[in-house]
């Protein structure tokens, strides 16, 4: 809670500083700003609660510890860019699950990244546009008071600026479309879908389509319904932002934990292995098994055995075999 409030404060200060104490702040975007602030608060709150769970806390500690491990640090840091590239940006692991799902996810991911990159700075008042001198057709992008880039209003750059959100909406809609098609056509997807999956898709759809309608209204309908659409769009965006920390999209913050897992498993592999008490085969690292055996009692599980130490010292194969042996012994050979 405290962290959430703190983070919200920090953002507020950054907004204030970045917008020249609200000099460049666009009051039309105030609603959005409140949405963002709530989003930051809720996300940080949810994130810290998540991090306090024993397995999560242990993983986080181990991840950082492993990253900094003197012997592994060099390799870890060297591989960091490619790990981020492959796991967080290209998301190649999704391709191994399904190519179409990967394509859809990439479209939505990059659409959202583009949208966030454009809207958050604008909302915060960090960036604004200023006409250059008296030229009606020439504008400059400014970060606080620093001019970054000048462009002609009829040029390609201008089109890109003004339509960045349209592009991101099209990307997201394409991704949502592919996901929806899967959900309508593939029996497996139909069977496993949960309400939260559809809610996330519906949210993305609503934000993108209302945003696009704004452009349609402005470009082709001479501004008809513009203010209504404007409110509607703002509403979807704000609701969407509030939904993120509590719904399916929270995975955006969880996924980077996978980097920690990578470093953790590297450290674990570098250390001694855990051999199975029944078959003698190595099946895990002592590091991770030690962590588990500490975490389990914290969570209220007691797999300790009197004579044999810990049930968790058996490999998964031998657990399955052991249960089968126990059951067939219990029925005297045959049920």
């Amino acid at each position: 809670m405290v962290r959430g409030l703190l983070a919200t404060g920090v953002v507020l200060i950054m907004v204030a500083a970045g917008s020249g104490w609200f000099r460049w702040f666009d009051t039309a975007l105030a609603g959005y700003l409140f949405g963002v602030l709530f989003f930051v608060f809720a996300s940080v709150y949810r994130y810290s609660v998540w991090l306090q769970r024993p397995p999560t806390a242990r993983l986080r500690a181990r991840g950082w510890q492993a990253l900094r491990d003197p012997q592994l640090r060099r390799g870890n840091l060297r591989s960091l860019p490619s790990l981020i590239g492959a796991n967080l940006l290209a998301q190649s692991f999704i391709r191994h699950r399904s190519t179409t799902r990967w394509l859809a996810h990439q479209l939505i991911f990059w659409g959202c990244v583009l949208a966030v990159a454009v809207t958050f700075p604008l909302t915060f008042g960090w960036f604004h546009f200023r006409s250059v001198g008296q030229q009606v057709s020439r504008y400059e992008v400014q970060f606080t008071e620093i001019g970054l880039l000048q462009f002609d209003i009829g040029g390609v750059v201008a089109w890109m600026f003004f339509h960045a959100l349209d592009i991101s909406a099209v990307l997201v809609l394409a991704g949502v479309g592919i996901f929806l098609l899967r959900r309508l056509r593939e029996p497996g997807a139909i069977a496993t879908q949960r309400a939260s999956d559809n809610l996330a898709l519906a949210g993305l759809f609503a934000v993108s389509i209302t945003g696009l309608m704004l452009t349609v209204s402005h470009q082709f309908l001479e501004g008809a319904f513009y203010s209504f659409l404007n409110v509607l769009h703002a509403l979807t965006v704000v609701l969407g932002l509030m939904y993120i920390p509590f719904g399916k999209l929270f995975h955006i913050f969880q996924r980077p934990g996978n980097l920690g897992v990578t470093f953790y498993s590297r450290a674990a592999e570098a250390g001694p292995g855990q051999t199975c008490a029944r078959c003698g085969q190595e099946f895990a690292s002592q590091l991770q098994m030690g962590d588990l055996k500490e975490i389990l009692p914290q969570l209220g599980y007691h797999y300790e055995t009197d004579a044999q130490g810990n049930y968790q010292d058996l490999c998964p194969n031998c657990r399955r075999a052991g249960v089968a042996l126990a059951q067939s012994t219990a029925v005297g050979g045959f049920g």
Partner: protein
Amino acid sequence: MARPPLSDAELVERYGPHLNWEPPGGWDAGLEIEREVDTHCAFCGQQCGITLKVANNSVVGFEPRYDFPFNEGKLCPKGVKRYLQGGHPDRLTEPLQRTEAGFRDATWDAVLDRTVSEIRRIQSEHGPDAFGVISGSSLTTEKTYLMGKLARLGIGTANIDYNGRLCMVSAAAGNKKALGMDRAPNPWSDIPHAQVVFVAGANIAECAPITTDYIWRARDRGAKLIVADPRVNPLARTADCFLGLRPGTDTALYGAILRELIQRDLLDHDFIEQRTHGIAEAAAAVDHMTPKWAEGVTGVPASRIEQAAELWGRPATGMLLHARGIEHHSKGVQNVLACINLGLATGRYGKPGCGVCTITGQGNGQGGREQGQKSDQLPGARDIGNPDHRAEVAAAWGVEPDDIPQEGLSYEEQFDAILDGRIRGLLLICSNPMVSLPDTAKTRAALEKLEFFAVIDFFLTESAFHADVVLPGSLHEEEEGVVTTAEGRCVKINAAVSPPGNARRDTDIICDLGRRLGAGQHFAMDGPREVFEEIRRVSRGGVADYAGMTWERLEAEQGIFWPCPTEDHPGTPRLYERSFAHADGKARMLPVEHRDPAEVVDDEYPIWYTTGRVVSQYLSGAQTRRIGPLIEQYPEPLCEMHPRLASVHGIADGDLVRVVSRRGSIEVPAQVVESIRPDTVFIPYHWAGHKAANQLTNPVLDPISKIPEYKVAAVRIERIGPPQRPVGQAAP
């Protein structure tokens, strides 16, 4: 000279077996299922019901068929993955002719006309019987009927036989001799009512997995389980009495049990008196077979033999199930008769929970021998040597009895005849002798000696590598028809798709050949339904009487047990309720002496060799060696041996070993397991070429059934070295 045009490696490269892993287009193809077709599995004589999913004229998946009473949705891994044979890259879609440079596509006219002209040339030069025909029991009954008719009326040769000859003919002959009819006496629904189940030489868990549940149901009701096998197979593992006999000693074991039944007076005297002949002679033959004597012969402890007699003899009901383990012997018929004697002595016929049944192995193992493709039988399971039977069939066919050739040579005998020049040409359908005949070197020599060799098949099998012409036929799911299951239940096979490319339905190919051979009046049928109607007519009044069956009835009633003489007859699930099928209505207890197998161990070849199957493969593997997940389950043949035997030869699990018999040798990894007798090694036979277990087997035949002795040979083993590569995980 029917030699393969290219090396085996080149042929395999082009024609497979390649592995198919996924439905057409891959798992993510998102195919719309257009329809679901209720039919049966292509593999094994149980013919489990299955529903096939179809998209774009391709079978792309399955769904359990809960409504079929035999299996109620249950399937083994072969059934689950059977759909992967459709849309397979190895599928033959064009007729082929062999050239020196390999097989070349040809027109149907070219291959059919060449086949006809070669048949006529060979017959005019060497006599009508110089052209042989070998058919198979995985075909629908319509196809098997046509093959018999094609050989006898189209080609005009006596020499037609089928691969059931390699399967269960010993059981067929034994049943006919003792009971007067060749069919399982009781339906499987009787098994759960048995108070004792005796599994004799049947690896049910791997070769008839669905039957397991019937036995488990009997055990749930308190039944005892006896298993006789040289290996502790998965059913034997928990048996109440395991008889781990030495290969080839079955008659001593069953004889000793019969003697114990007599000694302990565990006989059904009323049944024996009223319904059988021959108890005195049968008893006399086993009089010397004491448990101690049998222990010496079989290696089974005398106490277990006594225990088996008690377990089998005491209860009021009991079923004995046997399979290739007792049938694949040079005395296979004697083994079967010995088992039947155990059933007759205790009155286990014609009642619920009773019966001595063979578990047929092939898809149409039962039906495939009933309608006239067996060298000694005519349609309706009639005897070809019986003048009355000949006259009945001749009348139905509209020919003179003399127009029907007499009994021809059996499968292996035809290969002998090829080698000595009596047979010069061969037409083969639905069989793969290069894998499934004993003594592979002999089989290869025979095929290479053929002047002309035509093959009808859907894949280019290792045998078809030798073919002059290959006629691409139809898969199980590409043509309608009927099959008769191990139970004697005739069921309807439905077509899910049509043959791809220029492949044709087998019935169309066979009828086309018949017409081109100048027998148009006998092959005027248009498709399998008309063939089935002819079978009904021709089998009328025969033993396997299908006259009362219609395709519609078969579907509506989930199959019908023959005999079914009229359309209002319900079929006959349980036989012999009132009388046996001999003219006097009585069964025969025939005396069964014990004798050694044809080849016994000696100093040079000191180890017993036996062969069999694994659950993930079907017969010669022509279909199942092309299905990725099934090969993954058991990738290559392994030689099972006991740790005591292995240690004598310094062999560790996974080591490469050479197994040598008088006929050949094979190099395979060892699987060192305590589940096999220490004096015996086992190799499954589904593979071809240098992996063929039949390179070692003995081509000696049972004098009555003409079945080869696959289950016993003498070998020696040598360690070659450590594993050459990661050994195929034999784990399931």
